[in-house]
């Protein structure tokens, strides 16, 4: 059960988007998100939708995977829409009992739905087409400038990739410990919440102890293999820009400029 956890939800297939440099995808996602908050009219959103649809097409990832990401935010989405719908002052269109729907409220909720769903779909395009490892590598390279103000960029990236490597191992271990405790009569399925929380303590304690032990072992193994921080280290799979990455950058900037320009025109303004 716990073993099935997948993190980073990478979708294995081959496409132009998959082959793009992680830095391009990180930068692109960032630009896309910014653009969403700059639009003042519906045309901007229309452009964003068309652009995102094209990228999804190119990525060869089935559309249902994208929608899966939406499921997790449906609750947040519903709450924001409800608040916006009933709490925004303006001209009343419909009123049911004490609740009033205003024109401004309706507009706000539509914008909210658009923004949030584009936001989530846009970032899941990135995580679905980039391996977690590639993503940490890209982050490390992009944050390189922060080294000058003494941010331990390499160490952070190394910690992230080690954490990703150990998630399935620790999940398996949790499974094992839970089974061992269940064999001795522990009750994880009690209806009482307090009882269930209490039952977790004998799982967490051994899990933590073993995680520390593993960390100690791993540190020793890394040192034995000459690990001494990021300095003087070479890469087996270095990130090198190819022609397609420059083209992608061009396309992204073009999208950003055009969509923001169109999205801020003073027609049908919100």
């Amino acid at each position: 059960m716990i073993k099935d956890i997948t993190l980073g939800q990478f979708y294995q297939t081959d496409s132009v988007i998959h082959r793009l440099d992680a830095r391009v995808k990180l930068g692109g996602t960032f630009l896309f998100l910014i653009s969403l908050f700059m639009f003042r009219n519906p045309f901007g959103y229309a452009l964003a939708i068309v652009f995102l649809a094209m990228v999804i097409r190119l990525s060869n990832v089935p559309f249902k995977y994208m929608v899966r990401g939406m499921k997790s935010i449906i609750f947040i989405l519903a709450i924001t829409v409800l608040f916006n719908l009933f709490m925004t002052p303006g001209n009343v269109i419909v009123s049911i009992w004490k609740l009033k729907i205003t024109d401004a409220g309706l507009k706000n909720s539509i914008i909210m739905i658009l923004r949030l769903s584009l936001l989530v779909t846009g970032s899941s395009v990135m995580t679905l087409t980039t391996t977690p490892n590639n993503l940490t590598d890209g982050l490390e390279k992009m944050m390189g400038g922060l080294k000058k103000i003494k941010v331990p960029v390499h160490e952070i990236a190394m910690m992230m990739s080690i954490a990703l490597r150990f998630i399935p191992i620790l999940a398996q271990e949790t499974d094992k410990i839970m089974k061992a405790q269940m064999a001795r009569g522990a009750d994880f399925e009690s209806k009482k919440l307090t009882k269930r929380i209490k039952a977790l303590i004998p799982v967490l304690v051994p899990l933590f102890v073993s995680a520390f032990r593993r960390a100690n072992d791993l540190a020793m193994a890394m040192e034995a293999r000459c690990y001494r921080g990021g300095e003087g280290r070479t890469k087996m799979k270095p990130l090198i820009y190819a022609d397609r990455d420059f083209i992608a950058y061009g396309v992204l900037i073009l999208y950003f400029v055009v969509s923001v320009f169109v999205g801020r025109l003073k027609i049908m303004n919100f």
Partner: protein
Amino acid sequence: MSFLKTKDLTFEYIRRDDEGNVESVVTAVDNVNLDVHEGQFIAILGHNGSGKSTLAKHINAILYPTEGAVFVDGMDTKDKEKLWDIRQRAGMVFQNPDNQIIGQVVEEDVGFGPENMGVPTAEIWSRVEESLRAVGMYEYRKNSPNRLSGGQKQRVAIAGVLAMHPKCIVLDEPTAMLDPNGRQEVIRAVRGLNEVEGITLILITHYMEEIVHAHRVFVMDKGRIVMDGTPREIFSQVDKLRELRLDVPQVTMLAHELRKKGVDIPEGILTRKEFISEIKKLYGKVY
């Protein structure tokens, strides 16, 4: 040529209380003198707590001697400037395969050592390929380590050390967590490295079957080396091994018991083949 030399090596685990006063001192390694030549296959035996793992960690400069000195390829392990040279020349494989694999893909893990050493990218790839082939794991290079069996993981760990081009590999109970099949896999792989590539092996274990092919065996007890010789010399002293709470291989035991009952069979039989041929010598063909 001598590769590893320890001179009166002593190591103490010192436990201190909150004020820094010494509470207890445990001498894990006590006055050990070793001399290992290049290309040798050395086995170090001992039951739990005999100090064999502590000794192993000195070879890779993870621990430093309390007294005495360790020389790896002529370099003193206390010399801080030589630290990385020593770690590159004497690679180390640990007991738990999960806790020493860093990469999320097999090939990336094998590349970790060379990356740390600053080897150029193109050479990393060639080293990774050659190391994975040497342990027979090349076809798994794109796999996630989590999907491999224990023996396979341990072979990946060995390849990871091999990619650093060491002269010597220290294996600290590499088979303790494996099933019999995995154990055989790993031992076969490291023996191949010793015979084909001439890499010095220092195998620390408590499984007797694994040391049958070693050139020299050291038996440790309470931090001291108590026996030293070829496997045959060691296994001829069944009673002494038992005193040290160590088992001997089944055939060796059988020969020993037969000898006690008056059968004229030599001590120190190591393999089943040897045993059969000795019996045939005594009784001819028996049907």
